[in-house]
């Protein structure tokens, strides 16, 4: 038994991607038998992927970085040219996020997509998207990253346009695929630059040899711009509300994962690949030295403030339930990169010019930012599922035409309240702990940042109070008279997310020490990532 488990752990990086891919292509064949068997099969496949992810994550958190080489019995011979999956703490953390969301989405779809035609293709694409996201976060190879990015974009764009009879969905899907393909092509351009410079595609090898010459700067610029666009950072966020509101709700939940995976790409590029060149002094004005880390950090912080403000303001004005959550998701992404940006600009500073406490604050900000990633996935996911439930019950997403839903949909209302508390950072939900860390650490960096963050968080509360008032409270109006509570599978899916939110909110210390700290340490120690492939070079 232990033998089998250790073999499974050894091969889990490959199986995590292979199982959903295999399941994806088997789904249309299984779907020809029976709808119910197909749904059970798809849920089984996602759960199996989840099982492999959990054993892999456990392994990585206890024994450190794990590498997996494809197609070679003896990977230590000439590792530079081989295709590796390399899983460090950050990858494992992202894999956890990426696997929770599809499980929830698939369970939810059982009830939600029951009436739709072409369900087999729908599930195929969801599984493909899952495989793509997991590949993106697990891979240790730049070109592989590009391929998985494209797999994710293609399948998610096709899913955004799943309701082809709605013009809103189709136009959103077109915008999404244009943005995604341009972003991915730019990533490929940067990969080509790396290949021309260092004759390698492996991230660890590139990171080991990286310089900061002209071509490296171009690659950095192109990668940051393309991946931040894919991660919906203002002012390149406009595709996100379109795509999120056009897609069916369970699909949106998985697309949240793709957005976070792109954000992971930004972190991987900035922290790991360019980690060695962070402290190169580009130019110095007296005592003040300008380093790449300072430039990137300040740039990201500026964009982050813009992202938060734009996201919150547009959400407040929006009258479409899903579009509003989309803008709120933009604001949430702003919180993450606000923390990470301030971490980059304070932690990576040439020795002698920084104080120890400042570096500590930077570290803390990074903890908050990473913790907020999983919180955002859960909160926004739950809110979208609630929006989907409202749509399922009333066939309506415009808040102007809703009202008095809490009289008919008790459980959905409770789940919405949980999501509302979580997204605006009220205790005891998960958003509280991460936002507290972000406020406190960014206050030390610059008080204005923390003030903006807190004010916008209050406005985020106002945004969802508006939803709560206009959709759930109020008298029973004529258009919502015949509304019924949604099917059990949808309630179960929402319940899973709500339970996770409350668990994360009640026991933040447990989550931080066990999940977030390894991810943070992995980002800060890029040399470990390199030496896992190159053997301590």
């Amino acid at each position, binding site marked *: 038994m232990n033998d089998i488990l250790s073999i499974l752990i050894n091969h889990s990086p490959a199986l995590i991607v292979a199982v959903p891919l295999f399941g994806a292509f088997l789904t249309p064949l299984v779907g020809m038998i029976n709808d119910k068997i197909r749904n059970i099969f798809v849920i089984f496949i996602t759960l199996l992927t989840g099982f492999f992810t959990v054993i892999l994550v456990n392994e990585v958190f206890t024994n450190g970085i794990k590498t997996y080489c494809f197609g070679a019995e003896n990977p230590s011979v000439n590792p530079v040219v081989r295709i590796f999956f390399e899983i460090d703490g950050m990858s494992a953390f992202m894999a956890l996020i990426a696997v929770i969301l599809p499980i929830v989405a698939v369970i939810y779809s059982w009830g939600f997509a029951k009436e739709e035609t072409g369900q087999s293709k729908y599930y195929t694409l969801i599984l493909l998207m899952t495989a793509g996201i997991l590949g993106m976060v697990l891979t240790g190879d730049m070109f592989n990253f590009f391929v998985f990015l494209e797999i994710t974009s293609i399948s998610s764009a096709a899913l955004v346009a799943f309701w082809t009879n709605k013009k809103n969905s189709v136009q959103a899907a*077109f*915008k999404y695929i*244009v*943005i995604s393909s*341009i972003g991915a092509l730019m990533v490929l351009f940067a990969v080509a630059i790396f290949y021309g410079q260092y004759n390698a595609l492996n991230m660890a090898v590139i990171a080991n040899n990286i310089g900061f010459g002209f071509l490296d*700067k*171009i690659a*950095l*610029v*192109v990668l*940051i*711009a*393309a991946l*931040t*666009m894919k991660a919906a950072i203002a*002012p*390149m966020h*406009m*595709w996100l509300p*379109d795509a999120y509101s056009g897609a069916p709700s369970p699909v949106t939940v998985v697309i949240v994962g793709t957005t976070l995976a792109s954000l992971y790409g930004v972190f991987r590029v900035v922290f790991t690949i360019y980690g060695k060149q962070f402290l190169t002094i*580009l*130019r110095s004005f007296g005592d003040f030295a*300008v380093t790449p880390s300072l*430039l990137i950090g300040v740039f990201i912080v500026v*964009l982050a403030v813009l992202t938060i403000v*734009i996201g919150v*303001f*547009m959400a*407040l*004005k929006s*009258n479409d339930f899903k579009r509003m959550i989309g803008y709120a998701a933009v604001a949430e992404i702003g919180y993450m990169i606000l923390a990470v940006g301030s971490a980059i600009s304070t932690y990576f500073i040439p020795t002698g010019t920084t104080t120890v406490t400042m570096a500590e604050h930077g570290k*803390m900000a990074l903890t908050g930012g990473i913790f907020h990633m999983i919180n955002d996935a859960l909160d926004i996911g739950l809110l979208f599922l609630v929006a989907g439930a409202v749509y399922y019950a009333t066939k309506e997403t415009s*808040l*102007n035409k*809703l*009202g*008095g839903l809490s009289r008919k949909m008790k459980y959905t209302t409770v789940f919405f309240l949980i999501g509302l508390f979580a997204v605006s950072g009220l*205790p*005891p939900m998960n958003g509280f*702990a991460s936002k*507290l*860390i972000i406020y*406190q650490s960014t206050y030390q960096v610059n008080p204005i940042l923390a003030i903006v963050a807190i004010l916008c968080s209050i406005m985020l509360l*106002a945004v969802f109070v*508006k*939803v709560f*008032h*206009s*959709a759930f409270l*109020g*008298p*029973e*109006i*004529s258009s919502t008279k015949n509304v019924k509570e949604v099917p059990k599978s949808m309630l179960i899916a929402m319940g899973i997310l709500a339970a996770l939110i409350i668990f994360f909110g*009640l*026991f*933040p*210390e*447990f989550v931080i*020490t066990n999940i977030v700290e390894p991810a943070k340490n992995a980002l800060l120690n890029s040399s470990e990532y390199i030496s896992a492939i190159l053997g301590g070079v």
Partner: protein
Amino acid sequence: MLDQIISTFETGSGFWNPLVWLTALVIAFLIIYIVRGFGKREYKKGTDQTQAFLSGNPEYEKDKMHVKANNVYWGFTESLKSVYNFFGKMHTGNVSDYVLWFVIIMGILFLIFGVI
């Protein structure tokens, strides 16, 4: 394992302990329960007691009584009209503009790294 789960979370300026919070919650509920006990006991459903009082005017039909989402925060959006006009102009919904923003950001980054 259990003591690990319920361990205190400290940020340096504040702390969070699930047990403390649960105690606070229980105390809050107790206070609410006591305050609720001060309420009138004659309240009955279905009588005139539950009707809304609109200075003696008759109640409108239910659809009109509900404040629609469009009207919520009207004052806020009205007073920040200039900001909203600016943001509204940014969100054209045209895919070319989305790519244009990407090109602009890339240009700014090129400038930052090129000049310094």
